[in-house]
């Protein structure tokens, strides 16, 4: 496929991620921070996010599996996840975390379990999407093109 086509696909794909709410403006901020002195910033931060989140999700699963759930601990993990996801602009993950924290506050185990399910789902979805995005970027770079800037005008 021609470089121009991949670039267009990348732009369309990125736009769709914003339209569907997977990513918000914070992600654009990250892209803005990436430059020649730090060319892989976004990928690095997102990888960090992936590692962090998988660990947190594991912890959460274990914590909620206990007979006596330590809600403070759960809240702490969710808070971390919320912070990470909001830092990279993973909007949907962050939104589920907000709901999750509410359930922790009222110590609603059912709600928490549902939210855990949801947050895992959203996380895997956004992970998938971001990996696709990075793959497209790699394709473009490999073909000698440059990553197009996304303009959020209409």
């Amino acid at each position, binding site marked *: 496929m021609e470089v121009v086509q991949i670039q267009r696909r990348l732009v369309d794909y990125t736009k769709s991620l914003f339209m569907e709410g997977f990513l918000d403006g914070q992600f654009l901020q990250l892209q*803005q921070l990436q430059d020649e002195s730090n060319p892989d910033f976004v990928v690095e931060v997102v990888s960090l*996010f992936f590692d962090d989140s998988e660990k947190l999700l594991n912890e959460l699963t274990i914590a909620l599996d206990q007979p006596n759930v330590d809600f403070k601990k759960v809240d702490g993990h969710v808070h*971390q996840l919320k*912070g990470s996801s909001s830092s990279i602009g993973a909007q949907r993950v962050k939104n589920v975390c907000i709901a999750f924290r509410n359930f922790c506050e009222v110590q609603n185990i059912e709600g928490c379990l549902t939210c855990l399910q949801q947050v895992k789902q959203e996380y895997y979805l956004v992970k998938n999407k971001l990996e696709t995005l990075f793959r497209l970027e790699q394709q473009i770079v490999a073909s000698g093109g440059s990553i197009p800037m996304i303009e959020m*005008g209409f």
Partner: protein
Amino acid sequence: MTTAKVLTALVSCITALMLVHIIPDLLSVKTRELFLKNKAAELDREMGLIRTQEEIGRHVRMLTHEIRSTLDRHTILRTTLVELGRTLSLEECALWMPTRTGLELQLSYTLRQQNPVGYTVPIHLPVINQVFSTNHAVKISPNCPVARLRPAGKYVTGEVVAVRVPLLHLSNFHINDWPELSTKRYALMVLMLPSDSARQWHVHELELVEVVADQVAVALSHAAILEESMRARNLLMEQNVALDLARREAETAIRARNDFLAVMNHEMRTPMHAIIALSSLLQETELTPEQRLMVETILKSSNLLATLINDVLDLSRLEDGSLKLDLGTFNLYAVFREVLKLIKPIASVKKLHVSLSLVPDLPEYAVGDEKRLMQTILNVVGNAVKFSKEGSISITAFVAKPESLRDSRAPEFLLVPSDNHFYLRVQVKDSGCGISPQDIPKLFTKFAQNQSTATRNPGGSGLGLAICKRFVNLMEGHIWIESEGLGKGCTAIFIVKLGIPEHMNHTKLPYMPKMPTNHRQTTFSGLKVLVMDENGVSRAVTKELLTHLGCDVATVGSGDECLQLVSHEHKVVFMDICVPGTDSQRITSRIHEKFAKRSERPLIVALTGNTDKLTKENCMRIGMDGLILKPVSLDKMRSVLSDLLEHRVLFEAL
């Protein structure tokens, strides 16, 4: 002897008796024989007739077939005459067609003569009316004008029959209707039997003639329809060719015009720029008062000319639709502020009071062509200022709702509500000289200037409103002017469609856009800062953000590490405090302890996603110097740092 006589007498008697019986029988036999013979002869005759009829019927079928097999009028008529002549063994057969005027019948076709001379006969002869009034074949006198085909006196023809042939038009064929035979034009077919035979017109022959006449009518109408459609098609083809030519000419003209414009664009602007630039430079030099006046006039005039050139070029691009809007997200409030700033000097010189009011629910940011929207507002406001000698100008902007248009004078304009667009309505009211109602339609036409205003205000090019109208139309809007009359001021109103920017950030876009202030630092090269954040991802992002701004960033992941690392070299400590378990109060107070002198102490700024007042109050209480809401954009961080370093405190509005 007597026995012989007696016997003879006996035989005679018997014979006589017998004869009395036999003779009537004989006679009856004879008569029957005669009768049967007659009958046979009659039947023979009838057979002959039937056979003839059948033949004639066959001829008719053949004739019909012949006629219908062609769509050429002449062939149809020729064939009819020929076949009829043959079938019925006619002496002469002729067809009279009505002339264009409809007042005469013209001899069009005959059997014997190849090119009949154009005999004409008036159509309203009684005999003709008689024939036309019925659909039967009518016997007419051989002496009537239509039957006299050769110079009179030469031939005496046999019996003559005439029949009408209806000429059907396109309009007679209604859909799903049989053609009505009421308002008709008829042709006349005249058939003449040979004079030398004692033949007479038989009924079946007349019937044949009537049938043929009908068939001919149908065939003729088909042919007429075909002729019509051929003519229409030819006409269309001609029109197509003409249109094509016109289109090509237009395209050539447009291309020529565009080429011209492209050249003139550059050619005209270059000297213009030179004049303006050099005049401005000249202004900066030492000049005598007269010289200064002259230079100012030169500058003003050339600016005017430059504007005119731009307007003309813009307008021609607008006219042929090649102008596209430059869409982008921009600050709507800033546009109005800018217009106000530009117009205030002129207005204050004229002692006009200008007021701007923007409704609260007007979105701060919009998507559209900022430059051209500003141009439009500026033009409208500029006109208001230009045409007002005293009083006030009021500019109001609000979001137009469909109901609000009901009473205005723009009934054709439709507001189409949608989720990501809104309609901006701007009203500029002035207390100037007003416009009389009959002049209002001319306002938006190019170069058409109001006579009275032209003399008073020679500065207008007459293009401004025309361009505004084009821009407004491009923005799917409407612009119009209302005025009570001369001397009563006027109100210019326009509505344009702008997009609502997608909810990109939870924070607003940079809230201090373009106003350059000298004391803002845009890069903070080498500014040493410390970032404390337990969340690895968030820490990495904040670090990169600050590094991008030129800071020298150190990061720690816990409060204790922070206390260990912090030194007087750090100018700012960013502390992420929405992480529960971080004893931000403890850390803050320890930092305060560590650096007794205020000048040495780094500024402590909280980074939090909590938007409640309590958090802010807490931060202030425990001795933090600032609070920033997460997520932080690059621009925001830049301006926040500037503010912080300048004022030594910054608590972002929650």
